[in-house]
């Protein structure tokens, strides 16, 4: 759903169109924090709707919510904890990829930390699943690597 455009005449809003055709409004100062968007504005002008082919209507509102808080300087640890609290691992990944595509640095850094937090002390299989990695080592190669870096594998639980 399109968000309400800002009623103040002094702050400009930019229209963003997601890959699945929905349009969202964002303040120009928030758009500036997303370097990809700013580059598109510089190239296409700020009056037309900016197309974002790789970002979709499921995640863009959340990103806009983050930057709305950012431009008023209200991002606190509590806000960030609340922001990711109900997101599952896949949702965080999608946001992360979107932040990367949009070159939205602050959100990107925060989500990198959050992904690392989710992976902390997890088993090797869990991390593989998370990144969608196929194990292409032979059992011999794998056990040799485990031996070489033995200290890394002490105390890390393995899935059954």
């Amino acid at each position, binding site marked *: 759903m399109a968000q309400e455009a800002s009623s103040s005449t002094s702050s400009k809003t930019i229209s963003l169109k997601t890959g699945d055709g929905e349009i969202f409004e964002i303040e120009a100062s928030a758009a500036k924090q997303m370097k990809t968007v700013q580059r598109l504005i510089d190239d296409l002008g700020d009056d037309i709707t900016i197309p974002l082919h790789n970002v979709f209507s499921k995640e863009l509102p959340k990103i806009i919510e983050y930057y709305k808080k950012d431009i008023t300087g209200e991002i606190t640890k509590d806000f960030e904890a609340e922001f990711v609290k109900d997101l599952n691992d896949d949702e965080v*990944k999608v946001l992360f*990829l979107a932040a990367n595509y949009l070159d939205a640095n602050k959100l990107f850094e925060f989500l990198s930390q959050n992904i690392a937090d989710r992976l902390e002390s997890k088993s090797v299989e869990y991390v593989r699943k998370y*990144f969608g*990695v196929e194990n292409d080592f032979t059992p011999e190669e794998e056990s040799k690597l485990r031996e070489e*870096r033995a*200290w*890394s594998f002490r105390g890390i639980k393995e899935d059954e």
Partner: protein
Amino acid sequence: MADIVSTLPDAILCHILSFLETKQSVATTILSKRWKYLWRSVPVLDLGRSAVTDQNAYIRFIHFVYSVLLFRDPALPIQKFKLIFGYHIHQIVRPYYPMDTITKWVDFVVQRRVEYIDLHVDLHVGTEYLPKLPISILTCNTLVVLKLVCFNVVELFSPVALPSLKTLHLDNIMFPELRDFMLFLVGCPILEDLSTFDVAFDSEESLTCDEWKSFCLTNLTTADIDCYCNHFPLKAVHNVSSLRLQIDQENCRNDFIHTFHNLTKLDLFCSSLHYNWKMVIEVLKHCPKLQKLHLNEVELEEGLWTRNDDNENWVDPDFVPQCLSLHLRTCYISSFFGLHGTELMLAKYILKNAKVLQTMNIWNSGQPEIKQQLSSSPVASATCKLTVYYVP
């Protein structure tokens, strides 16, 4: 989804790995062939909390760290080095003395242009013996953040030079003299965030040199200072906008409190508001632009404080501190012993004179009548909201 993630370039995967402890990021070597060498490009050495309980565990640990240092991409700088290392001093004998090894690692990362060091070495022998701080840290010109816990800074033969340092957190650090600590601060000209806790000196000596009288960390915006254990020249931090301070009347010497021209937020911790109310008023007089005040009573020294309801009587200050008349919006008071004599008068005084006060919150134990007493006393600000919380 998996396809998209696997198209992420190595640099981004390494970036995520840089938020993990090195132990785990090295373990990603077995995820797949693509991941085998990714850990070598992570510019962070985060050894987290490593406690060893015997010599064998210690040897395995140092073997691991040395192999990481050897195999990582030598062209890459090391941005961050973190180690919290604990052991009992009798568990590890020479030639494997840990501080020798750790000093070598510190020297290595300093040479690799490290920007962030967080180092804590706990010898489990109390404060009589603190390990020596690796001195290469003190002339690292790329260092931006430095956090040190439990070190002895030995006599410095060359000046401290930390031209990029913005954040300095010191906890349980021993200097030979106060002068050496001042020289340390002089070496951090662009410092923005300073925290000191339990910074001690082998010899107590007051600052008499004229050169220190005007010393100030001009770029400092945030400070967290513990004046309770040892003298700290507050003049050095008087430019800050946010200050957390542990202090008692006894720590205040003549001409001790300077004017904090930019201070808008103050968290003050003292052992008893009852005995320190005069100091609190003095402090308020020196913070003309203060907007947010939090007064905390804490037990700074166990068993030291016993309530003695005599001697301390409230006297109205000769003039109302400017911050109360013009700027104070928020006031929190956390009272350990409850508000009785002078501290109750202090709370009432603030309510009576703080013309733009929006919020006054009080936390105390017991005393259900407090809210009534305060609600019925004069309040300068019509929009002030008073809340009293009870802490069991």
